């Protein structure tokens, strides 16, 4: 099928891998992306990497956003990236938000997480980055 028409809404999956129950941030981001005209598939809490990748493929999203506050990002994010590669879907950009130490953030970027937002990030910044990642050449 041809590339999606430019006027079609961006489809984005927002998911929380790991076991923490703090989804305020993910919900605020989901709403900001919605207000920017995106179709946000909100997958909710405690998603395994397998569930996240399955949802991303069934929903045919343009971009994936992961939120995590449990500290398990170094275990879970690379797993999501590996599963996407295995499914031939490594082109779907993944961004992340949460409490992620700088050193980990650098390593995750090298592994292929395209953008990482900490507590200081503005919604405007997150929306703009998501738009660029979804539309830009990947």
């Amino acid at each position, binding site marked *: *099928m*041809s590339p*999606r*028409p430019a006027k*079609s*809404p961006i*489809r984005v999956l927002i998911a929380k891998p790991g076991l923490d129950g703090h989804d305020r941030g993910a919900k605020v981001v*989901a*709403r900001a*992306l*919605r*207000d*920017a*005209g*995106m*179709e*946000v*598939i*909100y*997958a*909710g809490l405690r998603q*395994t990497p*397998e*569930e996240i*990748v*399955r*949802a991303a*493929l*069934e*929903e*045919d999203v343009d971009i994936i956003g992961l939120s995590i506050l449990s500290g398990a990002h170094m275990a879970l994010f690379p797993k999501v990236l590996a599963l996407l590669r295995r*499914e*031939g*879907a490594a082109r779907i950009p993944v961004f992340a938000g949460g409490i992620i130490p700088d050193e980990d953030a650098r390593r995750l970027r090298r592994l292929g997480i395209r953008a990482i937002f900490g507590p200081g990030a503005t919604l405007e910044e997150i929306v703009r980055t998501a738009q660029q990642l979804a539309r830009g050449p990947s």
Partner: protein
Amino acid sequence: MNRRPRLPAAAQALVSGDRRALARAITAVEDGDPGADAVLKALFARTGQATVVGLAGPLGVGKSSLVNALVGYLRARGRSVGIVAVDPSSPFTGGSVLGDRIRLERSADDTGVFFRSMASRGSVGGVASATRDVIRLLEAAGFSTVLVETVGSGQVDVAIHEVATTRVVVTAPHLGDEVQTLKAGLFEIADVFCVNKADLPGAEVAEKDLSELAALGTARDGWRPMVVRTSAIAPSGIEELWTAIEAHEAYRTASPDRLAAERRRLAAEIVERVRDRVAADLARSLDGEPSLAQLLDRVVERSLDPRTAAELVLAARARRR
């Protein structure tokens, strides 16, 4: 058996179980991508047999949880299930949050389930027609049971449920007295009423109200709606719900009007497609219509009314032809 003509690659992939091909074809339908037309044309012969259950009801009655319970029930009986969950798009930004997936509790490697969230996007007719096409894609991909979940408020949902073979209207205790059930719209389309959250007090009263409504009403196509009580979290009543759905399916497929109803539906679809094409062509050609610009100035200053202007535009086009 006749050999079927060869399918385009995207349709072939979808039929042979390629889930990403299915997901992409659904996106193409939603986007109005012309690529979807070729796939749908090629696959039409493989559709029309699926059980399509529409579930509609107000926000918060537990439709998504009920869908999850139904999926579990059907999977335990070896049936593959496609799910389409429609949520509204913002009329202001076009954005939406599609959250029905949250309730789905399936293991990530169960290929007998395909769940797709859909935003309503533009027009009422648009989403109903897209839903119909997505159901066809799911059926062609091997999902012989399709559940369609929508918020039950108003025209969009009634239009979407035209495409279902059995319509379940979901409600919950204490959503208002029985006068609510007299209002036109959603309650008129039900083949099955489902009082969910039966674990809460008041479920019996709600069931009684609906049973009376069903008994008093005019039977549509000779069918009187059945009423069941469920609890999606217990879960309980799920088997009774599916039994009621199957009873309606059996009634429908045995009905002597079945073919006539199918002819009516497909005739309406053809007319709708012709109309959409003519309307789109017309809108394009009116974009550069010379008489329109001139007349518009007069309409803006109120020296001409829009009705007369429309007649003059049509007359000018007829003269040129």
